[in-house]
């Protein structure tokens, strides 16, 4: 027989003005299994809590129902009170007599009746409750940052500066990401390299950061605090311990006609190469696809020229397994290329380029030393057309979203062009100007007003070449939809920002969700913007959606704080409200029959396979589902889905809920 204590709070007069609290306590006291019932003015006050504590001790209560305000207010308070009196806190239930009764009903018999009913329901539930203990999960004190762009750099530095270890992996030979390709940054027009390079170096030198470039995530297992990541270290063909980064090899390499990724194909590189002068690490890798040795079997000129003998051919990719407590995904974005826009002639006409290519043209370093020269003949274009929203906001192109950064960088490009080509003429075709951000609108106005960039509101239908000119056919919607034709020397397309290549595959490896455009999905668009649905995996930057640099950096710092707050704990303490798969005696072991149809229902991928083995022979007798308590968040969807009722949710078990419902109905 249970010994339940019932405590009805008046909440001053908040409850007692409409509910006859004394009667509620009396009626509750008459119920089977109720050992003690009383009412009190302020149950949450010190004397109120003391009353509960004393009653627990005096009457040896094994369960408590407090009729008071909403559990969202004081459930934690009263559970703590119970715990202090030695009662398991999960043996305490709150009947919501204020928000759900006294504040929404008039004084009267029906109102008091309802209060009694609610208390009755919870008395029955608490009789079925089981004592639960918080779940403790040990934490591996190290974070994995995937992607070495500005988001990854910022995250890694912030975590490392808090004294936690970080492992960063970057798939290309150098960290830096897209930001390292940019010329100047809006809205300040400060040099991108100038602000980024010091941070790249800091990453490389930070004692708490281990950097692996040319490395990719191969596999991720485990759960929050306890991930096991397998990293593929792609063979660089260079022994970095010997390489001094002198660069001699790169000057000797005979294959010099490889379009440089860093320069977006506007410049060339060799097969053994450092992607850009400020690369971190500043040591070369061999691009096997273009290396004569790898392709044809002979050459080895680099090896001959290397003063330290650092070249090592034919080494396979290596795999490394690391244990980390948290993962931050900062894999960034891509811009649309290829012939996605045949009507604009990209790929067909050399002088139709993307915004990112323009960044390289405007960059003070490669490939034109900061002079705007068009790719076809190296001439300085006198008339440039910038087309915004190339792909973005165009459901027909499969990209209904706004790429967010294009308005600003297009204004920046036009401005840079006007600054560099005096007397040049620039036109921007746009849909809307979205310049929300600190100093952003002012920046665009400056382009228009001070630098006299010609802004035309309208779409471009087609770009074609005629007599050495690019004919841009568009429309000016502000002038009554007049067709506009501009003969341009160069056209710059503000192509949409899209999810980075392989994002979908990566998401599947990590079991995080992604949106229809393969951008990774945050756990909550507003309140959990850097978390994913998988506990312990965080996001920052443009892998989530197109973002500009300030936003990316802010998100990166946010993600870093989340990681640090996770790693700073010895153990993760979790509410024990998790699902469990039942176990029973042999020969059944569990009523779970292992259909695993629950696997797809769990938003957290918390359902794992557990093999039940014969103790002697080790043969697998049965494979059943097992809920990983580190991953389970306690939604209980699997519980009501399971046909054989083999899963139950602690704190909201089938029996507890069934009993509560039946007791509410006095059935």
């Amino acid at each position, binding site marked *: 027989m249970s010994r339940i204590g019932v405590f009805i709070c008046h909440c001053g007069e908040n409850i007692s003005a409409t509910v006859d609290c004394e009667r509620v306590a009396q009626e509750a006291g*008459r119920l*089977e299994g109720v050992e003690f019932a009383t009412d009190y003015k302020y149950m949450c006050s010190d004397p109120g809590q003391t009353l509960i504590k004393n009653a627990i001790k005096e009457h040896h209560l094994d369960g408590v129902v407090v009729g008071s305000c909403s559990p969202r207010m004081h459930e934690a308070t009263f559970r703590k009170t119970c715990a202090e009196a030695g009662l398991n806190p999960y043996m305490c239930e709150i009947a919501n007599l204020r928000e759900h009764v006294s504040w929404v009903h008039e004084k009267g018999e029906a109102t008091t009746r309802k209060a009694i009913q609610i208390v009755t329901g919870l008395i*029955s539930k608490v009789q079925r409750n089981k004592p639960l203990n918080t779940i403790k999960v040990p934490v591996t004190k190290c974070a994995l940052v995937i992607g070495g762009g500005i988001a990854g750099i910022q995250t890694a530095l912030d975590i490392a500066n808090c004294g936690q270890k970080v492992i960063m992996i970057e798939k290309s030979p150098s960290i830096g990401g897209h930001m390292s390709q940019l010329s100047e940054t809006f809205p300040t027009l400060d040099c991108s390299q100038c602000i980024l390079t010091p941070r790249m170096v800091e990453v490389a030198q930070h004692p708490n950061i281990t950097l692996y470039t040319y490395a990719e995530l191969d596999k991720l297992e485990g759960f929050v605090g306890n991930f096991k990541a397998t990293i593929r270290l792609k063979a660089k063909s260079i022994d970095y311990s010997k390489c001094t980064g002198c660069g001699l090899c790169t000057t000797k390499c005979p294959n010099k006609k490889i379009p440089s990724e860093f320069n977006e194909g506007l410049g060339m590189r060799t097969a053994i190469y450092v992607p850009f002068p400020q690369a971190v690490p500043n040591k070369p890798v061999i691009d096997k696809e273009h290396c004569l040795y790898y392709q044809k079997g002979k050459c080895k000129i680099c090896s001959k020229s290397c003063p330290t003998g650092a070249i090592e051919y034919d080494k396979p990719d290596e795999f490394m397994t690391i244990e980390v407590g948290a993962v931050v995904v900062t894999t960034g974005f891509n811009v649309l290329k290829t012939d996605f826009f045949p009507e604009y002639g990209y790929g067909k006409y050399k002088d139709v380029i993307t915004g990112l290519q323009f960044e390289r043209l405007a960059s003070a370093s490669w490939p034109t030393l900061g002079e705007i020269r068009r790719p076809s003949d190296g001439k300085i274009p006198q008339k440039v057309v910038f087309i915004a929203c190339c792909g973005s906001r165009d459901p027909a192109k499969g990209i209904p979203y706004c790429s967010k950064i294009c308005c600003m960088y297009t204004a920046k490009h036009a401005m840079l062009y006007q600054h560099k080509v005096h007397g040049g003429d620039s036109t921007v075709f746009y849909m809307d100007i979205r310049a929300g951000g600190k100093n952003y609108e002012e920046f665009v106005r400056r382009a228009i007003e001070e630098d006299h960039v010609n802004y035309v509101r309208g779409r471009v239908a087609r770009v074609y070449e005629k007599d050495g000119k690019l004919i841009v056919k568009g429309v000016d919607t502000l002038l009554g939809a007049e067709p506009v034709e501009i003969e341009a020397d160069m056209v710059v397309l503000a192509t949409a920002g899209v999810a980075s290549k392989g994002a979908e595959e990566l998401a599947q490896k990590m079991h995080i969700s992604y949106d229809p455009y393969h951008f990774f999905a945050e756990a909550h668009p507003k309140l959990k913007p850097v978390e994913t649905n998988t506990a312990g995996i965080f996001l920052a930057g443009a892998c989530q959606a197109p973002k500009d640099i300030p936003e990316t950096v802010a998100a990166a710092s946010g993600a870093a704080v989340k990681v640090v707050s996770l790693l700073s704990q010895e153990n993760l303490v979790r509410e024990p409200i998790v699902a469990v798969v039942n176990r029973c*005696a042999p*020969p*059944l072991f569990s009523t779970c029959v292992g259909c695993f149809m629950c696997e797809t229902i769990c938003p957290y991928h918390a359902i794992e396979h557990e093999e039940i083995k014969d103790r002697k022979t080790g043969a697998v007798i049965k494979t059943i589902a097992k809920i990983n308590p580190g991953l389970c968040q306690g939604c209980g969807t699997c519980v009501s889905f399971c046909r054989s009722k083999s899963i139950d949710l602690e704190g909201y078990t089938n029996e507890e809920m069934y009993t509560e419902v*039946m*007791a509410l109905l*006095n*059935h």
Partner: protein
Amino acid sequence: MEKYIIKTEQIDAWLKRIIESVPRVLAPVSSGTKTEFRRIKSPEEVNNKSLTTTVSAKAAAFPPVETLFKYQKDGKDTTLTEDSFDKYPETVLWHARSCDAMGFSPLSAIFDWDYKDNIYDERRNKLTIVTFACNQSDECCFCTSVGGGPGNVEGSDIQLTMLNATDTLVEVMTEKGQKLVALLPDIFQPLSEEVDKEAVLAKIPVQFTKEEIKEHVSNAFDSPVWKRQSARCLGCGACAFVCPTCACFDIQEDAHGNHGRRLRCWDACGFSLFTQHTSGYNPRPTQATRWRQRILHKFSYMPERLGVYGCTGCGRCSRACPVDMNLQEHLISIANSNHE
């Protein structure tokens, strides 16, 4: 035993009178493809053509679920209430078959072998059974092999046999039966000359004897025959639930907070849960062991302990079985087997 002749066409008039006089009359009523014993309000409802009902007549005295007692808790006090026996109505079971009537004897043997089950006894005592001798049979029938027969009167209070298109023989075995005759005495003519009842009965060949089966199975506990025979058994409860002699029941609580009742409900030995212990251990872990139990119980344990066999050869289990676990076929094979 009194014997009468009644004009077949007058039977309905008699039944009508019985319905008017007796609180409950159960008779085979067809709905859809099946015929079952149902409470009737008029003779027209009866399906006179039906050979047997799907479910046997045992529910007339042993319902699928019945209340043993009710309880009410108030604080620390508990009040128990038993149903008044007045709740069980006087009942006439109309148009049953010999095999139905025969089934009540093993039932009574089980319910009364040491402790007298008042509830069962009361229902059984209030039951008057009017059987119709069978002039047809089907391939599942094997009453003659287990000591019964199409015109067997054991357990019947009255048996009717249609002699020809116009006349029906009425055999009254008991006082209860006589009471029914007395409801409309004018239509019964005393039997003037002996009639050949056997001639009109269905011919059901004897395939084996129950004693033979008993002898075979009593020593066959470890025989592989059980596994072989039960291989296709799906483990449902159809055979037990339709059987006229299966009396296994489960005690269940219909509990609702402070009140509830204790119930007796049909159970079936074919269910895997039937003998499962709380620990998870099951002494009859396979369908083969459950099938063995079924046969041994009916043909070995019951005759040994209660002196009565648990089978009337009605063939209901065979008809109900979704996978054609034909009892007669299996019994023949047991009878013909050497001890394995």
